[in-house]
Structures are given as structure tokens and as C-alpha cells.
């Protein structure tokens, strides 16, 4: 079952408590951030605030550490990562229109993730699929010869599939 927020908080707190008796308690910050990311998928601001309080470490320091190491995600990463190719060939074939269509359909900006944590939007350098331009990659799959309409259709299909999957899961659990 999906953990509730309280459970997640409790899990992290228990993890932190495990270090309390150690010497240099504060030095376990990175281990705690690893755990927080494992629990929440990324490092949320309020989770970092909790860690700051529990470990008595200034939030600015935690933020400094979280942004230094590339392993830590500061934003949620969606189930599907959409990479719109903005290479020259795609660009002249209207990649920007595709990009705008995605932004409009999902209501997010570049680098963001939809609130349902389904999609993350990124741009990418040439994917080497110029013949199919304009192209976009969703996770590992390349979709080519796109139009704005086609792109929106594809996104909706992904969403539908994800919803079906979730419904299936819910059913199993009952």
C-alpha cells in the first residue's frame, strides 16, 4: 500500500534517530538525504525543513549539500520523462510548436513535473533521429514525425495507460 505522509515522516525520523548516539551526529546528513529521497522520490522543501530541525543543521547548509551532489533530485521526477529534441533539424521542422503543445496540455514549464508526478518535461540536444524530425523521446521510446495534435494524443495515451495501471493495482489490493 502507498505510504501515507505521516508514515513517511515517521520512517525518516526513525532512520535519523538511529544515528543520534553516534559521534558527530550531523555528519550523517548525506545518509539521511539518501533515505529521504528513497522515501519521497526527491528532496522536498518541507522534508529538508524536518531534517534541519531533527538534526539541528541550518537549512541553508542542507540546501547547499542537496544542490552540490548530483544524485539528489530537488524536483519530483515523473513516471514518464518527455525529452523534446531541439536540434536544428527538429527546430526547423517545428519542434517549438510541439514543445508549446506539451506545455499547454500538461500545464507545466520546462524542467517541471506534473502534480500527479506522471510527466517531467525536458529538452534535449539532437537525438540523432533527424529523419523523423521533429521528434520527442518519452523515457526510452522515440516518437517521430510529430505534430502538435499527434503529440497531445500520445501524451493522453500515456496518461490513460498509467491510469489503467493504477486502477489495476487498486483492484489487486482489494
Amino acid at each position, binding site marked *: 500500500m502507498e505510504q501515507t505522509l505521516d508514515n513517511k515522516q515517521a520512517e525518516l525520523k526513525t532512520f535519523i534517530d538511529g544515528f543520534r548516539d553516534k559521534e558527530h551526529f550531523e555528519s550523517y546528513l548525506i545518509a539521511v538525504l539518501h533515505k529521504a529521497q528513497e522515501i519521497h522520490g526527491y528532496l522536498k522543501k518541507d522534508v529538508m525543513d524536518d531534517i534541519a530541525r531533527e538534526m539541528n543543521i541550518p537549512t541553508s547548509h542542507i540546501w547547499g*549539500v542537496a544542490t552540490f551532489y548530483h544524485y539528489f533530485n530537488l524536483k519530483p521526477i515523473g513516471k514518464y520523462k518527455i525529452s523534446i529534441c531541439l536540434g*536544428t533539424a527538429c527546430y526547423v521542422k517545428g519542434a517549438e510548436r510541439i514543445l508549446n503543445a506539451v506545455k499547454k496540455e500538461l500545464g507545466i514549464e520546462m524542467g517541471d513535473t506534473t502534480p500527479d508526478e506522471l510527466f517531467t518535461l525536458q529538452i534535449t540536444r539532437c537525438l540523432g533521429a*533527424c529523419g523523423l524530425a521533429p521528434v520527442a523521446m518519452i523515457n526510452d521510446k522515440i516518437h517521430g514525425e510529430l505534430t502538435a495534435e499527434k503529440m497531445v494524443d500520445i501524451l493522453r495515451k500515456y496518461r490513460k495507460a498509467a491510469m489503467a495501471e493504477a486502477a489495476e493495482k487498486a483492484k489487486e489490493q482489494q
Partner: protein
Amino acid sequence: MKKDDKRQYALILCDGPACLRKKSKNLEEVIKQELDKRGMADRVRLTLSGCLGMCDKGPILIVNPGYVIYGGVTEHDIPAIVEQHLINGEPIARLEINEDHLFNRFFRVFGDVGFFGKQMRITLRNCGIIDPEKIDDYLSVRGYEALAKVLTDISPEDVVKEIKKSGLRGRGGAGYPTGIKWELTRKSEGSPKYVICNADEGDPGAFMDRSAIEGDPHTVIEGMIIGGYATGADKGFVYIRAEYPLAIKRLEKALGEAKTHGFLGKNIMGSDFSFDIEIKLGAGAFVCGEETALIHSIEGSRGMPRPRPPFPSVSGLFGKPTLINNVETWANIPVIILDGADWFSSIGTETSKGTKVFAVAGKVKNTGLVEVPMGTTLREIIYDIAGGIADDKKFKAVQTGGPSGGCLPEEYLDTKIDYESLSKAGSIMGSGGMIVIDEDSCMVNISKFFLEFTENESCGKCTPCREGTKRMLEILTRITDGKGEEGDIEKLERLGNMIKKASLCGLGQSAPNPVLSTIKNFREEYEEHIKEKKCRASACIALLSYTITDKCIGCMACRRACPVNAISGEPKVKHVVDKTRCVKCGLCFNICKFDAIDRR
């Protein structure tokens, strides 16, 4: 066949990432099923090993006794191997990797294979032979004997003396004499003291530390305990990349077993020496391989280096004396203790003793890990061990030391590898990356690749590295984009030499090496890019130009394929590329069936 004739076998299946990608995980299941089916499960032991270093021949399966190495094994081969080899005792020749013979002290069982021929295994001596998840296996190959020996017979001072005498030098990069580091830490006042194993291996393409830990975690642990005993430390940390889950798992298991066997913890083996080891995870920062940055990371801070002195041996982790060595260095310690400094220092060159592990990659026939005595030449590694250049291409350069190292051309092939000779040649030993480059690679592009890496990994603390590598990368990018200007090479040299001498830490001090060494050895390629806007390896896309030759029959395939309509021409008439519109995607080149597109 009589029942008592049944032979016992031990199978070793390589579990390294390259083999895993080739489905060696499935093989494990298939082998188990096959053994079950034939009721042989009780007398055949299947072990998963860390990377065996023969990545291009995977999946690898080794059958002992006899040390028969099978390569390229698929699930269809399993029934045959079981039937013919395990039951009938006849190895399957077609699967066997069987080349010329050479014998070596540690790896007698490995000695049957050419790939291992000129090798000598100290660091990796147990990798692939023992089950890394079983302490009993390690004990059976004299594991923890060195620890027992120092605890009972050798005073801490004498351990330090022995390490000093061995001539062992740090395998992580700079080659600082290990014994002197130990001595400084031992003599430093302050308590407690700490011992750290640097397993933050981050060079692209280098994976010897991961393999050593995955294949033989106890050696590293034993080395560290001895280091703690010698320096007076009672606590150790292994700082390891979070990206190495298997190594972490095996290390955790090994630490647990070492504890239950009394090799770690209070009063080790009944002595009054106590020592414990904890694992600390990295989080994706190459600079944490630098010792002061690593210390800051263990302390829970940003992994930014600080000026030295004070050196960690005086003021390290939490401000206390700290001994840091990398994985490979630690793995040598038990061997030196067991076989003696005299024996160890008999291997290698005047200044560099013992062996070194290299991760050989690039355009060679055999890629993977090799461990050779210091003093082996580059040529021996590339041609004798790695089988020479793949696809009969021409050798162009060998890059050693990863992003901190340099590119050496053919005239350096007979350089006997040690710390000094490589550095004299304009490269470094580094952690042991070795990338072989053939004529298809552009040296400007390669140096740009390495600089992109260091620029991205710069911690941002000191000006030369933070701002300087950025500017160098900009210049290299414009050169490879065909926008190089007169004077760019001189600017690269000026910045590079300054960054090398003025940066705060080793990352910055070595970041310009790939650029400076390629300018030194392949200056003409830079000049061609800038003056003639030409890339002789056809690797810099922006410098390529596409023209249609007289071979064109006017089939229109390229015209249809061009995504930007840069090709025009009537049917059955030679087509023309409009260079102002061409985006150099190469589709026309790939689609043309008549070899009529000229790309240069």
C-alpha cells in the same frame, strides 16, 4: 559410471555489469535448473563473482578444477556444458577461451589464458576465484592471516616500516608513498585517529575499485584493519559511490561477517586492538575523490576541497589525524605483510613497485581490467594483452589517467609504465583508466569530451578551475564547431598552464592535461580545425561538409530524406546540396545507395 567417481565442481559465473547486460543473470537460473534436473546440485557449487575483466567476451563462466574459461556462454550452451564437461569430464573446446600460456605466482589458475598472460594479480588476486559473499572462501586463500600476523608478531612501528620498505605508492592517482603517509599519521598527535578507504571511483570508464570490492571485499577490509593497527586508529570509513549498489551490498555483508568472526570490533582476535568500519555513501560528485573533499563529504558537507597543509595525516576527518588510501592501495596491504616488503619491491621499476590495475577500453580487441607489474610497456598492454587495435585500424593515441591524464601518441608506446615515466611523457597514472584511440577519433573532440567532464564536475570553489575550465571548454567548443580563431591554441595553452599551477586541488591541477597533451602531440589537428575548418577524423559534425559526386544517379532518395530540404535536383539528374541550409545530420549520407555523397 560408479557413484564414487562423481567429481566435485565449482562454477564461477561473472556477475559484472557487462556480463549482466548480456544476461548472465538468466544463466544463473538456467544452470541451477539444469543441475537440479540432473540431481547434481549437491556437488556443484555455483558462485557469482565480480567483474572478471573480460567484458568483451562475456558472459564468462569458469569451471574449476582445471580452470576452464568459457566465454560468450548462452543458455543453450548450459545443457552441453553440464553433460559434456561436468558429467563426462570433457571441456567444450568451441566455448573455451584458450590462448598462450604464462604462469604467475598468484594467479596460477588464471595463467592459462592469454588475456592474463602478461598480467600479475595482487589487487585482484582473489577476484573470480572466491565467493566474495563468503568469508570462509576468503579464509581459505590465507585471508586475515596478515592481520593475525601483525597482531601477534609485528609492532605497529614495524608494520609502518614494512609498508615503507615495500615502496608501495598510492594507487588513486598522485602516487604518494603509502608508507610515508602511514608514518605521518602514526606520528601525529591527536585522538581519535581515522582510517578511510577512498572508493569514490569516478573516472569515466574506470571500474577497478568496484571490481575489487565486488570480487574480494575482505582484502580491502583486512588492509584497513592493518592500517588502523599501524597508525593507532580505531575507526575506519569506506567512502563509496552510491552508484555501486552491488559493491555496497557485498561490503556490508563482508563487514558483518568480519565482525562475527572477531576480525572487527572490540579486542580483535583476542588482542587489545579494537577497530570498526562504517560505510559512508557518496552522492554523485567526482571531486569527492580528492581527499580533503572526501573528508568534507563524510562530515556531511559539500565536497569542496581545502588547501593543504594541514594534510589529513595531521588534521583530517573531524580535525583528527586521518589515513586515506584508495581501494587498490588497501588491497595490496595484506599481500605485503604476508609475502614481505622485499618480495613486493622486487616487482616493478626503480620508483614504482608492485602492480597496477588498468581499465582498458576504446578501440582494442579485448577490453576490460588488466593488472600488470609496474614497468610493463604501453605496447605490451595494448597489443599483447588487449589484442591490439580493433578492426585493423591504425593506432593513434592512448589516453591514460582519465580526465586528469593525457593522450600519448605512438612514440610513447614503449614507455615502461610507472608514475614518473607517464608524468614525464605528459600524462599521469591516475586511477588507471586507459582508453585506446584509433584514427577515427578526433583529438580535439576527445580533449573536449574530457574537459566537458571536469568542467561539469568542478566544485566551483577556486577561480582557475571554476571559470578557467569553462572558458577552455568554450574555446574548444568553438574550434570543433568550426568557429575557431587564430590565437585560440595559445589561449588554451595560457589558460591550461595557469589552471594547472594555480588551482586549489588535484581536479583543477590536472583538468587541462587532456587538452595540453593533445596540443603538444597533435597540434596539427587543432590547426586544421581552426585554419582549414577540417576534421581529419570526420568526427566534428559541424566541420563536415556534404557534397554530391558524379556517382549520383538522381534517384531522389536523399532529397526526400533531407529534413531541411537542402537537397535539390530533378529525377535522374545529379543532385546538389545547399550548404547554407544543410544541418549536417548525415541522413543523405546514410541513405545513398550509390556512395555518391562525399562527406569530409
